[in-house]
């Protein structure tokens, strides 16, 4: 009987899998492979180019330039600055989002009934809204509300550091972190809540019988049992922050040296004339490698902690 069914699944394997594979190949695999190839040639977008001879290439393979694009990518100061900016932003954003969402989850878990549902809904709402639209709202908040109303000379309290946040590289980083935290904390909070609810109550009962203090219980029971949730949230905030684009465009449009790497790659082709797609593609491949390495190592390390716990 089982053998019969296995053969049914086998017979129908390809019809069921093929559509997905075709889309996958067409939209992701083929462009990716072509992209990697293009990062090693002189590419102007609509035609291939041999830089050494300063002429068009009749055939793509003639335009091979080896690692020249990669060297140009790293030599491009805007690229390396954007990369460094993105790293700093990601560090701050990940910490911020994780702390806020975990704190929210812990607090919301103490509430029950209709208030709990309402709170969860309210905190999640920002996540439903588009990054571009939010960026415009927050641009106003930072430029006018923060600058003049609350922290200005005539405002509530005069804190110069919190003024003109969209017009300074360092301040804008924190502005972006605030925006991202506002938008994402609710989503991550839901994940943490799901994780908290998965911890068996018996553990807590045993701990309280043994006279464990609140903080001690938190460290020894809650934290280890939350590692799976932590892995997911960490993964999503880490890769998400590194790839951030819409909010970056809307909040500062990359002005005042506030370009994140995703936006920078987009602008690379506009920075030269004729556009150097080869260099931009090399930057994109570098981007991919960084994201892949970071994500994979993060998952590896947190999974290890999960097992240890």
């Amino acid at each position, binding site marked *: 009987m089982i053998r019969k069914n296995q053969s049914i699944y086998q017979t129908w394997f390809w019809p069921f899998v093929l559509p997905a*594979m075709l889309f996958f190949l067409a939209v992701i695999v083929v462009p990716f492979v072509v992209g990697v190839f293009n990062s090693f040639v002189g590419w102007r977008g609509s035609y291939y180019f041999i830089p050494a001879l300063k002429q068009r290439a009749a055939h793509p393979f003639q335009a091979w330039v080896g690692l020249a694009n990669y060297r140009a990518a790293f030599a491009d100061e805007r690229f390396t600055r954007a990369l460094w900016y993105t790293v700093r932003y990601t560090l701050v954003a990940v910490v911020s989002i994780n702390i806020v969402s975990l704190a929210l989850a812990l607090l919301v878990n103490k509430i029950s009934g209709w208030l709990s549902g309402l709170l969860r809904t309210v905190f999640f709402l920002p996540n439903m809204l588009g990054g571009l639209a939010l960026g415009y709202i927050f641009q106003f908040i930072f430029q006018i509300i923060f600058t003049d109303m609350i922290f200005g000379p005539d405002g509530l309290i005069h804190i110069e550091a919190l003024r003109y946040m969209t017009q300074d590289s360092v301040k804008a980083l924190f502005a972006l972190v605030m925006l991202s935290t506002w938008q994402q904390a609710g989503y991550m909070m839901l994940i943490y809540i799901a994780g908290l609810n998965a911890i068996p109550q018996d553990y807590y009962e045993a701990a309280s019988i043994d006279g464990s203090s609140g903080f001690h219980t938190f460290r020894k029971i809650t934290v280890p049992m939350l590692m799976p949730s932590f892995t997911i949230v960490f993964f999503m905030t880490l890769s998400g922050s590194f790839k951030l684009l819409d909010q970056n465009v809307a909040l500062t449009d990359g002005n005042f040296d506030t370009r994140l790497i995703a936006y920078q790659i987009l602008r690379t082709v506009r920075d030269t004339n004729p556009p150097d797609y080869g260099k931009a593609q090399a930057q994109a491949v570098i981007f991919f490698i960084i994201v892949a390495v970071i994500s994979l190592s993060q998952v590896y390390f947190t999974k290890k902690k999960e097992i240890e716990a």
Partner: protein
Amino acid sequence: MIGAVNKHHFLIRRIQTALSGTVLVIGALVTLSPLWLLLINAFKPNTGIVGNPVAMPETWSWEYVVNAAKQLDYFRSIWFTFLITLLSVALIVLISSMAAWILVRHKSKLSTVIFMAFVSAMLIPFQAIMYPLIQLFDGVGLKNMPGLILMYGGFGLSMSMFLYHGFVKGVPLGVEEAAFIDGAGVYRMFFMIVMPLIQPITVTVIIINAMWIWNDYLLPFLVIGNSDNKTLVLALYFARILAGQYGNPWQLIFPSVLITIVPIIIVFLFLQKYIVKGISAGAIKA
């Protein structure tokens, strides 16, 4: 002795709950404040907005909202975005559920390899693919709305297959075996029996994909750009650029952002129970 400990505990619990509640309510108000700001300023002239952003409008004049709707070609853009989102999500649900299911049921090394390939694609940032992708689709005449839908179909696969795969693993074989004994055909069995069983994760998949496709900026920007038919986000972007040449036109920006957000909020209010549940369920499965 035990009674005293219990009463102490009870009191601490009560205080904790009250404190948590207060902090959370304040947090909730802070969270909502930008949206409140958006609402009241969408009905004010520029001077009113910049002059006193937190004040209620002197008169709630609709002209700014109406003007914004015109600038965004509102109803056309909404319809366009809705169509794209609907078709893309339907496509994603169909092909990812079918593929994930068979990958779970047909246990083999090939299945594992294929699944890993799909999931690992989540690591590829869009920038690494975008230029070759656009070129490719342009070459076959698909740098347009249908092409956009196909692209979303491809991009939604990794995450959706991951979610479906995890969920289907938890569905017992018994029901399917019974159906086979009764002589059901594969397609019938999949659509009549399996799909209803995995409905919870389908809801999650729909919500997650609809959310990012509706709000997406980059892909429509590259594929459709500044053409007559634009998605809502794209319309907002270009309207902002057009008007923003002479300083910040807040009286256009605020109502524009407001009407961009309103459809989402309406949908959210109606479906929030399912949405929150769906996200939480997806989190557990992951």
